[in-house]
């Protein structure tokens, strides 16, 4: 029996124009040349499997623009997913980050950023991802947790190779078998102390859009490897920021609540009684003016989605 997922979502905010990053002086004298560039990030579809120099440049230009938004992490993340989605030409893209990534502990989901175009069923799944669903209940994350590699790239063929995959990842397979997602790939990398923070970038094709090509996969793999480089250099902020007005204890409870942990689990991890955890829940609901956990989760996702959605800049 399919599970019904209900999460109220805020309407999307209208796109706003974004500053194009560092301004150029009137005249720049530099003793280095670069080849002619195509405007913007858009690329043509070809049968090649490896990115061309022009495509590499477009990826790096996008990441430079992303880096320039360092002071505005939500806008930074939104530009990243919108830019990658447009560059690869997929229907949808998302970015998520989680902390506490290890085989022994469930990661704490921190945030996700989605592109504007959503399949409603898939959006419901994503809304539950890391909130009610454990991250490792997603096949891509399931594989990632068990892999020692710090940078991983998966396609549907990699994570759902067996005929009985429905038994392992029912929610994911339910969405996919509903005819919503035709193809997808996810790249994940670990970062931070001990590699316990994980960042995932996903691309999906809906309905009749067809399969992703090897070129798409290689392009995303290259882009995510470079994104990891940016994160490791501190140019992209993916860690969850503390919520103003919350005590450290309430922040700890909030992180775990958003990760979908049960009160009993939270109580054990924080050495509190279950009653105390429930009292903290009520304080959080009052603080955020929501009626319950689902509304709180939707509020956080809505905060990210309601952030300014930059237009990709046109290059002169």
């Amino acid at each position, binding site marked *: 029996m399919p599970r019904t997922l209900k999460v109220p979502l805020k309407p999307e905010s209208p796109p706003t124009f974004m500053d194009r990053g560092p301004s150029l002086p*009137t005249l720049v004298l*530099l003793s280095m040349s670069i080849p002619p560039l195509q405007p913007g990030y858009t690329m043509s579809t070809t049968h090649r499997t490896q990115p061309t*120099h022009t495509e590499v440049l477009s990826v790096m230009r996008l990441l430079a623009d992303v880096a*320039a938004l360092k002071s505005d992490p939500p806008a930074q993340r939104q530009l990243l997913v919108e830019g990658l989605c447009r560059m690869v030409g997929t229907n949808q893209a998302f970015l998520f980050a989680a902390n506490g990534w290890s085989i022994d502990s469930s990661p704490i989901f921190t945030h996700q950023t989605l592109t504007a175009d959503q399949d409603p069923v898939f959006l419901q799944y994503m809304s539950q991802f890391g909130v009610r669903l454990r991250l490792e209940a997603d096949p891509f994350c399931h594989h990632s947790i068990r892999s020692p590699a710090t940078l991983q790239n998966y396609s549907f063929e990699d994570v759902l190779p067996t005929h009985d995959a429905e038994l392992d990842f029912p929610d994911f397979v339910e969405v996919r078998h509903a005819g919503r997602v035709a193809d997808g790939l996810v790249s994940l990398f670990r970062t931070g102390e001990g590699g316990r923070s994980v960042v995932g970038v996903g691309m999906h094709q809906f309905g009749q859009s067809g399969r992703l090509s090897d070129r798409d996969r290689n392009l995303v793999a290259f882009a995510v490897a470079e994104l990891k480089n940016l994160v490791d250099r501190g140019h992209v902020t993916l860690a969850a920021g503390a919520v103003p007005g919350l005590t450290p204890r309430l922040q700890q409870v909030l992180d775990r609540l958003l990760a979908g942990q049960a009160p009993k689990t939270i109580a054990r991890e924080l050495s509190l009684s279950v009653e105390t955890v429930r009292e903290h829940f009520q304080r959080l609901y009052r603080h955020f003016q929501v009626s319950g956990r689902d509304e709180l989760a939707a509020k956080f996702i809505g905060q990210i989605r309601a952030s300014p959605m930059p237009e990709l800049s046109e290059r002169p």
Partner: protein
Amino acid sequence: MNRRLGLMQSEITSMMRTLADVAVLRSTPDLQLAALVTGIASLIGASQAFLGVAENWRDSKSPKITHMLLGDSHDPAFLHYLGDFGRSFPVTSDPFVNNFFQSGDDFQTC
């Protein structure tokens, strides 16, 4: 001595990483320009680099140097030349700038 003329992907990536480092510094223009000059010089192994900015660049008018930024290491004679550049003599007296001034192209490498 490398005889290649085109850039390899790794070189493009290194260059764009440097420009990302520059882009991050947008809130501090002085540091941003310094990172640009030193970063590009380091990439190509130049012993000296500079960045000059001139405004009012029109055919009928000599441009005015607004500011100039030098790399870390300077040759004294070249530094002296750059010190006069745009002050004691017009920027169009420099052969590179003169070429640029005579051309209608927006982007040139001389």
